[in-house]
């Protein structure tokens, strides 16, 4: 298994690409947005009643469902007093004509891991409170399901993951007669999350020397560079450059754009989540 230059997704015409580039140069985007403007965001929680927590996020026409399932497991040896978080992403074959069937490929794996790192380093979830006893902890499965890909899967998935986690209730852990720990699904408490620490990722595209947030799919196919910056409170908690190159000053500009975007995203999130 090696990483191979992708062939897929090459479905934007040279004409469109040139148009996007010309518009960007004058500070405008193909769908009329400003460089620092996100597409419309809608966040709905509780959309899957078989899950312990769930959310559906639309970011323009990009659409992601996240479902959380709670299980029991052993802690990792190097963090015996913490619960376990596992983030998995499936980019469904539904989502675009270029998505293939199969186990998660490198794009899906990277997507899951970038979202995972933002959550993990932000303190949004209090993992200490997910430990039950020295050998048993809660295992929190976050499954990200990309239903339609119109660009910027990371930010949509990150929002879906945090909304689903925020809406999650934990079945209470109880000991049965023989002393074995089990989950009582009818007795539930809220997932220990701290909204003030919510990690908010901002994907930033680069065309020539212009930077802009939330690229849609046509823009993604025209980019010369891309970077995702995740911020929690006033800290940068995760970064992932995924395409091209950036100069030092471009990186600092991207960080500043992410701080600004974070404020606006936080408003959208606070409106939708309790």
């Amino acid at each position, binding site marked *: 298994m090696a990483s191979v230059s992708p062939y897929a997704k090459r479905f934007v015409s040279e004409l469109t690409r040139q148009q996007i580039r010309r518009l960007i140069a004058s500070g405008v985007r193909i769908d009329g947005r400003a460089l620092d403007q996100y597409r419309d965001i809608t966040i709905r929680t509780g959309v899957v009643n*078989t899950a312990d927590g769930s959310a559906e996020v639309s970011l323009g026409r990009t659409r992601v469902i996240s*479902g959380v399932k709670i*299980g029991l497991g052993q802690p990792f040896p190097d963090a015996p007093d913490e619960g376990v978080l596992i983030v*998995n992403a499936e980019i469904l074959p539904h*989502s675009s004509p270029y998505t293939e069937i199969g*186990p998660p490929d490198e794009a899906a794996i990277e997507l899951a891991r970038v979202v995972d790192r933002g959550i993990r380093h932000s303190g949004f979830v209090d993992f200490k409170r997910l430990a039950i006893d020295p050998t048993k902890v809660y295992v929190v499965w976050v499954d990200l399901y990309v239903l339609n890909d*119109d660009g910027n899967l990371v930010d949509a998935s990150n929002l879906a993951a945090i909304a689903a986690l925020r809406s999650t209730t934990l079945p209470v852990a109880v000991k049965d007669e023989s002393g074995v720990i089990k989950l009582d699904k009818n007795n539930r408490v809220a997932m220990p999350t701290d909204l003030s620490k919510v990690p908010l990722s901002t994907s930033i595209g680069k065309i020539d020397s212009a930077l802009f947030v939330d690229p849609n799919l046509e823009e993604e196919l025209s980019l010369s560079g891309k970077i995702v910056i995740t911020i929690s409170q006033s800290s940068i908690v995760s970064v992932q450059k995924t395409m091209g190159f950036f100069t030092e000053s471009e990186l600092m500009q991207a960080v500043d754009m992410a701080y600004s975007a974070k404020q606006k995203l936080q408003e959208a999130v606070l409106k939708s989540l309790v």
Partner: protein
Amino acid sequence: MKQPPVPLLVEGKRADGRAPDQMREVKIEVGVVSNADGSAMVSYGNTVAVAAVYGPREMHPRHLSLPDRAVMRVRYHMAPFSTKDERKSPTPSRREIEISKVLREALEPAIFLEQFPRSRIDVFIEIVQADGSTRVASLTAASLALADAGIPMRDLVIGVSVGLINGVVVLDLNGLEDNYGEGDMPIGYMPNLGRFVLLQLDGAWTREQFAEALKLAIKGAEYVYGKAREALKAKYFEVAEEVAK
């Protein structure tokens, strides 16, 4: 027979209040995945299936294409969070592989595959929420997504399940009835042509119950067919409105 947590049938009423020949609430929305050539979301009560169709498109690798007709690829898959049990592994189970096959074999008789030699039609179905009858909800969703994609069909294929509860033949099993009932019979039916394209069964059925089940399935399929036509019309109407603007 396993003991159900609540009685499945009391004085002709099922545990969720339905009559034996009554479907759960049926919700159908067409065109839910904007990138797909066709798509549909179908709910039978708490069971939710989302289907997307791509194609007809060029077949790769070419040596697997057919010279005289289109190849169909059908995938039925359940989301890891779609069941009340523990998280389901996303790796396809033997059950999912079998259902993908029977759904393909239910859809193929409905499509004019011979109009598209050397090409491929892809149908992807995802169960987002499962409460019984997932394969038949999938079939309805798939057939609406095909229609939405403008793929020429002999008839819509409608899926409904019939079950056996305390000796009574009932329509549209939910998860509870599926787990504790005496028999399950998922059916795919083309209402205008009167053809059964999917038929599985397990449990223990008499000849008479089987015959009754077919009749009930037809009745259920005709009901869902009405809903399906409304949903298709609603979408075309919207499109027409948009065009008119």
